[in-house]
């Protein structure tokens, strides 16, 4: 085998959403980086729906952006419809979502990668790792070239032993139109990794010219569109609507009649699919009483007629697909451009990872994205970013960057993955975050900018902008705590509107803002200066004041759990030798091998007594 002349600091295997963030992070942190992918034309391709963000996912994108990642900027540059979801349900669960121009998204990301110093992009399929004495030293590709690297990041997506299903027909593939990765997952199993199988699916892509949009309900984005990135000033490109359509009883009858040729129900598919993203046949079978299912017809771009019917993924045969899509009102004449399919792929149980995403088995090897059993572009990108940062930190002999569950959704997700593993594709939900009120989209920069800067990823200019914003927030907070209004000195109509009659003493502006319905817009009517406060500042001040009680309650909980979170459990701790644990608890600890007492306490079935026994064992070891 030919060994390539360069010696890379970081080799990233895969060019999807995880691979892109990993490669950019590492190169931006000064590392000589190589990105290897099966198809350079498919970099940052959106294999499923042409959208970024949504509940909890939007939170992840903001966190990626705050740390210095690319996803937020990329969607801001190529998004064709932006919306803020949950505007009425509280600031913690407000989330951004955008439709992407699929081809523009991919091309812009490729351009960013190409313009990045220290980053080489090469086409090639990695089939094996070069591992010596438990440390990875490089990778080998199918076409006979070996690359040396101090660290390797695997971001294989759905490609490892990918198997595409359309009805009872199936064939190997990494995604429709792309070859699978063959050999790498067998190699990982030989190295000792537990490899499992998952399944996911995608709907057909339909020809927009054959849809009667006049019969569908349009859904427009927010005006003006609000960007993801803390650095984007405004969204300039034109915006387009989505359309809402519904299935009906006849659609469901067509699905039911085709079930005998479903790979899912005939047992051909072995992999476990995601419950939150079921195929239409799954929905019809599991919820027989539901008369209709909603779908958003999402445009795939401005320069294409292809559209994506969300929520209508299926692995039924093509004739059933045609009949099914045509049963939907407005889609009677629809032409399928690309059929829907299910795909099975290999993943490596993430319980075999440290919180830095380095594998426990092979030193300097990191896993990110769907290889860890997750689903979703945002989940993948967030892991890719962290793997890239941590691989780069490793080459600099620095400690890994790991976020706690109270610091970031990224921390919640990675802790869930490495503590509990996963048996189905893992998706982020806000309900997974116990400190949800602290982990808001609006404060992602306040939570994480500093960390991104310390790691050496966030550019100086963006950091300076952030510090300016922080100062303005603090100044404004101090101002509203200090400045007072005397109700009797106000216009009578203001006194009446804000129910201030009878109040003798002066109120601080903060006291006014503490009222549930009193916003900055209201404040501006009473206080001239409030008018001049920029929205990003007033938003923070208002949230911090209004939710202070609840936020403080969560901060208190975080403080309580800190001692457990910071108590590390050595990897060689022998649970069999530990007196005082029940057999059940011992078995669980042996299996999950938690890194900290905090992680141990989150394993189902762990008792307070078992945690005490563990803490004492740790203390004894430390004294030895």
């Amino acid at each position, binding site marked *: 085998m030919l060994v390539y002349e360069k010696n890379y600091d970081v080799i990233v295997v895969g060019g999807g959403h995880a691979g892109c963030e990993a490669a950019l992070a590492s190169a931006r942190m000064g590392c000589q980086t190589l990105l290897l992918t099966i198809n350079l034309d498919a970099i940052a391709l959106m294999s499923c729906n042409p959208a970024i963000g949504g509940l909890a996912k939007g939170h992840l994108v903001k966190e990626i952006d705050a740390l210095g990642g690319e996803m937020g900027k990329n969607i801001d540059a190529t998004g064709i419809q932006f919306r803020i979801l949950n505007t009425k349900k509280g600031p913690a*669960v407000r989330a951004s979502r955008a439709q992407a121009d699929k081809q523009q998204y991919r091309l812009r990301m490729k351009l960013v990668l190409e313009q990045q110093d220290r980053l080489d992009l090469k086409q090639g399929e990695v089939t094996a790792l070069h591992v010596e004495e438990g440390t990875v030293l490089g990778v080998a590709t199918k076409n006979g070239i070996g690359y040396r690297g101090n660290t390797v990041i695997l971001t294989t997506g759905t490609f490892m032993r990918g198997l595409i299903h359309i009805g009872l027909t199936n064939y190997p593939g990494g995604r429709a139109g792309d070859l699978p990765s063959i050999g790498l997952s067998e190699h990982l199993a030989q190295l000792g990794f537990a490899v499992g199988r998952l399944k996911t699916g995608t709907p057909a892509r339909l020809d927009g010219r054959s849809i009667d949009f006049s019969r569908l309900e349009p859904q427009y984005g927010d005006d003006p569109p609000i960007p993801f990135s803390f650095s984007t000033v405004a969204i300039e490109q034109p915006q387009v609507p989505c359309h809402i359509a519904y299935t009906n009883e006849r659609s469901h009858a067509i699905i039911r009649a085709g079930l005998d040729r479903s790979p899912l129900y005939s047992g051909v598919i072995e992999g476990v699919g995601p419950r*939150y993203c079921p195929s239409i046949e799954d929905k019809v079978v599991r919820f027989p009483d539901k008369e209709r299912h909603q779908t958003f017809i999402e445009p795939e771009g401005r320069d294409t007629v292809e559209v994506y019917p969300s929520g209508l993924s299926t692995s039924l045969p093509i004739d059933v697909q045609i009949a099914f899509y045509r049963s939907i009102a407005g889609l009677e004449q629809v032409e399928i451009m690309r059929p829907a399919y299910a795909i099975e792929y290999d993943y490596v149980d993430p319980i075999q990872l440290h919180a830095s995403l380095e594998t426990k088995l092979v030193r300097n090897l990191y896993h990110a994205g769907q290889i860890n059993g997750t689903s979703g572009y945002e989940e993948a990108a967030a892991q890719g970013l962290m793997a890239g940062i941590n691989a780069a930190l490793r080459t600099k002999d620095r400690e890994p960057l790991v976020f706690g569950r109270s610091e970031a959704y990224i921390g919640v997700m990675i802790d869930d993955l490495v503590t509990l593993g996963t048996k189905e594709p893992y998706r982020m*939900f806000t309900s997974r975050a116990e400190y949800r009120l602290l982990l808001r989209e609006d404060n992602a920069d306040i939570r994480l900018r500093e960390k991104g800067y310390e790691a050496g990823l966030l550019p100086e200019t963006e950091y300076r902008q952030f510090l300016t914003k922080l100062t303005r927030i603090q100044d404004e907070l101090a101002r509203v705590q200090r400045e007072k209004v005397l109700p009797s000195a106000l216009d009578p109509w203001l006194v009446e509107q804000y129910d201030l009659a009878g109040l003798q003493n002066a109120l601080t502006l903060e006291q006014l803002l503490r009222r549930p319905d009193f916003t900055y817009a209201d404040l501006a009517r009473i206080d001239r200066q409030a008018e001049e406060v920029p929205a990003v500042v007033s938003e923070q001040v208002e949230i911090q004041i209004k939710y202070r009680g609840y936020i403080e309650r969560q901060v208190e909980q975080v403080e*309580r759990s800190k001692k457990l979170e910071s108590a590390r459990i050595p990897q060689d701790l022998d649970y069999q030798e530990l007196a005082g644990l029940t057999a059940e608890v011992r078995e669980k600890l042996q299996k999950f091998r938690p890194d900290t007492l905090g992680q141990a306490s989150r394993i189902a079935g762990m008792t307070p*007594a078992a945690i005490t026994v563990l*803490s004492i064992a740790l*203390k004894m070891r430390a*004294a030895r």
Partner: protein
Amino acid sequence: MYIHDTIAAISTPLGEGGIGIIRVSGSQAVAIAEKLFRNNRNGGLSSHRFYYGTIVEPATGEVFDEVMLVVMRAPRSYTREDVAEIHCHGGYLLVQKVLSLAIGAGARLAQPGEFTQRAFLNGRIDLLQAEAVIDLIRGKTDAALTLAQHQRQGLLSQRIVAVKQDVLHSLALVEAYIDFPEEDLGAAAGEEIGRFVGKALAQIESLLAGFDEGRVLREGVAVLIAGKPNVGKSSLLNTLLQEQRVIVTSVPGTTRDIIEEIVNINGLPVRMLDTAGIRASEDIVEQEGVRRTIEQIPLADLVLFLLDASRPFDEEDRQIAETLASHRFLVVTNKADLPPVLQLPTSLASAPVLSISTQTGAGIAALREMIFTTFLHGTTVDRRELVALSQARHRDALLKARGVLLGFQSNIAAQLSSDLLAVDLHEALRALGEVIGDTTPDEVLDLIFQRFCIGK
């Protein structure tokens, strides 16, 4: 763990001991002691000094017991926090009462092993002591397991699980509403959430009524003797009491009112309820007694269904059996000294049956044992302590959950945003979790996916 709050627990085995010690540890320990303790000296409490005085209910000044009190200020204490120990007279009820006063004054019930955990976390335990401590914890672990099994089988924890289910359902509705804004989940579920929370609160109220502090602490578990007239209910009560307090006559329907007596069974205080004979009768007074009996049945933790072995199973017996169907009961057949006539119907085939004679005393010891094991699996003092703890723990958890859920209701009325409403429900689940184990996010998600057709 709750490093900064103040915890309290009974440090001595409950039951027959001469002295019971309640230990309080944390920043509020001394303040709590000062609230509860009265003596005729003025001035504060010095560290490491034994004081003689009384324990009082702070609100009323009512005196509960003569005690010795010692305060050990940080760091010179077992946990390295401020510690107060109240040495009172031993005995199940009194020690429980003092513990509940300490909790009322601001302490939280300690988790098993929590004093040791604090001692460890605060760096108090050294290597020499560690081996011994591990043995101690092992004891606690095994006992905790017993407790867990006991609670799994226990009626009460089943009911708390039911409360949790209702809270979980409300939370699933709130979380689905938050996490899936683009799904077509149907009309807003506000009304349904209100209904689930209302149901949870009603269950908590009824549990608290049944496990009201006064009742548990003064009266222990309630056992009701039910049976038609003249089967020997009062004789059984007297035999268990081993003294004649209840008028016993052979005229049917004499015992008209509910009679309550406390019987000590291996240290477990059992509140025996003797009922007026449940009997179809024209007599207004007696019918009043029957009404009271039926009212009492839900309050009883166990019903002894007393039958006369020398008479056939008749319509009156059948009616009682029907009333009892949904309650925990033992079938006790009396008059084992007379020729047997009674044949149990198939509906009682699977019920536990015990044969006794109040005349000869046969089977009484076995009955006492059976009552005891119905509540406690085993006879050691250790396990009794755990059940006592678990009772206080149940109550503690339920009170906390009730407080949070009442807050939730007013927050819903005040139209607080969903993210804040979810915080209340999570706190209620955490409170219940102290008894029946934590709720994981996956439990909530499971419920959402079962209920709603989610997926894009």
